[in-house]
């Protein structure tokens, strides 16, 4: 990741929120859709400039894969569980099980966000069992 390129104008509030330990997402002022990742328009109705909101960080695991053959930059960390999490506010994001046995998490499990340093040192959302 080229550090000087991030955050960008779309993602700045998201990463600023993460630095405070908050999971920021967007909600459309016109149709109320939850939007993730951050954008300059609503993916549902097309209205510009969605509002920012703070998630409670609670959700359910929608999909889960335990990575045994990681990309080179992650080779010392395998095996680890990559998750798609459906947050209760109505958006989905990718993340990873923050700690513990990768085999211990299953689709449908309830999870809670935590913030740890990501691969580039930036506070980054991960999840633990709720």
């Amino acid at each position, binding site marked *: 990741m080229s550090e000087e390129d991030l955050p960008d104008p779309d993602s700045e509030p998201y990463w600023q929120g993460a630095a405070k330990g908050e999971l920021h997402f967007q909600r459309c002022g016109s149709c109320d859709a939850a939007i993730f990742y951050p954008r300059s328009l609503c993916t549902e109705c097309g209205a510009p400039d969605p509002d920012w909101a703070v998630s409670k960080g609670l959700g359910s695991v*929608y999909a889960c*894969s335990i990575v*045994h*053959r990681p*990309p080179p*930059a992650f080779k010392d960390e395998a095996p680890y569980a990559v998750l798609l999490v459906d947050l209760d506010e109505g958006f989905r994001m*990718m993340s990873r099980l923050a700690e513990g046995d990768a085999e211990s998490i299953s689709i449908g499990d309830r999870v809670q966000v935590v913030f740890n340093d990501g691969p580039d040192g930036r506070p980054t959302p991960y999840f633990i069992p709720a």
Partner: protein
Amino acid sequence: MSLKRACAIAGVAESRLGVVPDSTVLSLQAEALVAALADAGLEKSDVDGLLVSGAWGRLPGLQIAEYLGIQPAYSDSTMVGGASFEFHLGHAAAAIQAGLCKVAVILYGSTQRSRADKYIFQIRSDLGYQYEAPYGLPTPVGSYALAASRHFAQYGTTNEQLADLAVATRDWAALNPKAYRREPLTREDVLNSGPIATPLNKLDCCLFTDGGGAVVVVSPDIAKTLDKPPVWLLGQGESVSHAQISEMRDLTITPAARSGARAFDMAGITHSDLDVVEIYDSFTITVLLTLESLGFCAPGTGGEFIANGRTGPSGEFPLNTNGGGLSYCHPGQYGIFLIIEAVRQLRGECDARQVADATLALISGTGGVLSSNSTCILGVE
């Protein structure tokens, strides 16, 4: 407006496949083009349309035209991953129908195995990718693994069912002298091949080879003047839905649901009319999801559909008859080889792997991470 019979495929060819160190990404495409033009009975000077895709160059559409020494009147460099060539076929048909060109060639080549081309799925961490990059998901396999995990949990699909597809595909490869892996494979071999990203094992994944291909697409007027029987485009549909797996709404339904419906409607046929089916097999799960999305079986029943050799040479549903991306070749973007095999099946040129009396074929290309799909229906008189 319909593309039905707007064009015919007049020539197809591969370059050398597998490991081809004495080649470049350009020479492999030229090699395939020369062979495909000979197959069609046409000359390079007849070519007035060029459709290319690749991540190997800065401006691939310009680089390959320059190398070949052609100045096409119609160009298309649509890049939607491995399905690009099925998109190209529809776009060539539209261009020919509009009178913009008469002889269009679709080209692809890759030396990813021998020369470490800039790989199509080069890892990015900017723009939308910044929200996935921190988590170390290997791409593209990890994205397909997530889709498989969802299908397993939602419908009870099993690794044994996916393994049976890999075995059936290998059984076809054993009948194809050009296939890269032809030795017998068992369900246990696949199950014990080692996890890459659960639930996908190594032998659920496609090959990593060199190779190129070319397809010559012509107007109906020209098709009727050539020696070989024309293979007509009867229907085509395309759809794209996302670039990253976290943006795919339902991991069990691919863009093939939309593109397939359009292709069937255009061709005016139903599933049971088809004689042979070629579906992009980047991973075993890709085929299962595509079969369901195209409506060959109900949502959730793809596992049963592919189990127990049903898609193999002795099965009732001939699928991926060249041995597929799993066992024949997979040079980064595989979609052009679906077209090549379907044309050969419809012409009756497939020797030991020939499906008897094949007159209608469906091909379905998937690109990215279940991101793009184009489905084409081909037929002969």
